[in-house]
């Protein structure tokens, strides 16, 4: 058999195999890709927005003394003056720098990072948006205002996933891969031991209820094998797949019949087990 024949035979036999993972795995992967892409987009646009605001604030800081020095002395009544029109918007930023006792360093005047921006120039617009807490530093208020959009965005993304009813996707958004795997292990251990209170707590954290172990055993399958009817009911109520078998091809219903638990078998059949 030549190398070419070997490759052909391998490809023919390989073509008989399953061509991909389960749909739940595929969905979780694509959801993670979408989440990371959204994060990347947010990172790309944030510096641009900060740069624009910083440039505007810097322009105000630089222009204010010039405008004030060139403003005409109070003239006749009704004559418009340029300085008062500009001063309210720019003065606080300038005051912050002067009050802190710092010389206007390049960092203060032209911040290039988000941190620098928050430290030097941001207080002016932040103070305008949210009054400083009485008797306290404005830093907390500034930080809260600056972080709020990011937190709101993350919460909205998580809520959207949760509303879609897809626990696998929600798990991917709210947990790292490692954390999700740990929760899956804890869930399977609780199901195998019939610890329903612990199961309740774990399911409330919205893990992937059907997360299998390395042999394909789900929490439901382990609860069935160990004849924990309450745990079985609880898992089914939380959307566990009644037909998710293990790597050896054993379905929950087959296991229920093998261990001779008619009650659990009935529960599985009611949930759509085949």
């Amino acid at each position, binding site marked *: *058999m030549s*190398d070419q*024949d*070997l490759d052909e*035979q*391998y*490809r023919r*036999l*390989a073509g*008989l*195999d*399953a*061509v*991909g*993972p389960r749909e739940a*795995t*595929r969905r*979780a*992967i*694509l959801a*993670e*890709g*979408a*989440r*990371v*892409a959204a*994060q*990347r*987009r*947010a990172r*790309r646009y944030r510096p641009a927005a900060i740069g624009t605001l910083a440039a505007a604030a810097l322009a105000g800081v630089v222009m204010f003394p010039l405008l004030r020095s060139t403003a005409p002395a109070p003239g006749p009544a009704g004559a418009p003056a340029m300085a008062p029109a500009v001063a309210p918007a720019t003065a606080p930023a300038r005051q912050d720098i002067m009050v802190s006792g710092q010389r206007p360093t390049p960092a203060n005047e032209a911040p290039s990072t988000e941190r620098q921006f928050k430290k030097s120039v941001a207080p002016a617009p932040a103070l305008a948006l949210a009054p400083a807490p009485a008797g306290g530093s404005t830093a907390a208020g500034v930080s809260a205002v600056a972080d709020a959009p990011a937190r709101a965005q993350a919460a909205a993304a998580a809520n959207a996933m949760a509303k879609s009813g897809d626990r696998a996707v929600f798990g*991917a958004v709210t947990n790292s*891969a490692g954390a999700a*795997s740990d929760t899956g*292990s804890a869930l*399977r*251990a609780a*199901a*195998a*031991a019939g610890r329903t209170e612990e199961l309740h707590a774990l399911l409330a954290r919205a893990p992937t209820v059907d997360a*299998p*172990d*390395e*042999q*394909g*055993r789900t929490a439901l*399958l*382990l609860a069935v*094998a*160990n004849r924990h009817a309450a745990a079985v009911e609880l898992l089914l109520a939380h959307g566990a797949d009644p037909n998710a*078998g*293990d*790597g*050896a*091809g*054993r379905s929950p219903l*087959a*296991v229920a019949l*093998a*261990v001779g638990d008619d009650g659990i078998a009935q529960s599985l059949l009611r949930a759509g087990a085949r």
Partner: protein
Amino acid sequence: MTVEQVSDEDLVTRFARGDAAAFEALYRRHETRIWRYLLRHVGSRALAEDLMQDVWFAVAREAHRYRPQARFTTWLFTLAHHRMIDSFRAQRPQAGAAALDELPDAGAGPLALALAGDERAALAKTLGQLPPEQREAFLLQAEADLPVEEIAAVMGSSFETTKSRLRYAREKLRGLLQEYA
């Protein structure tokens, strides 16, 4: 230009800039190859599912580090290779599983084998008989279509060692598959 015409390397760059469609295109393009590589190597569908998710999560999170000097396929299979090794090291027995282990294995009987397809079972058995390094080298060539230099880079071995592994793997497979020709 449609997404299908864009190179892997450009798709990763687009994804690193926040294009979710580029990630989906990459995934669809390489799903089957990476899946077969993992499944054939670990021999367990459940473990392959876990690894598949781990590998692609890593692709998503590490894409910004990718540099187009290396082919995307080489980078992808290197990630998969490392994830597989980590997984072998971390494997622990599952608590509470004893009850299941006592039950008959539905996949072990001759009827199940016949139903699953005699040839498919033969392929799995044949690959399972190869030493892990030879099996991986062969799968990287057959499934990932990587040249010897890139297989060596993925596996962290020398060019000559990799060539020997491939030669031995092919010789053994040829003998084992002869009867199914």
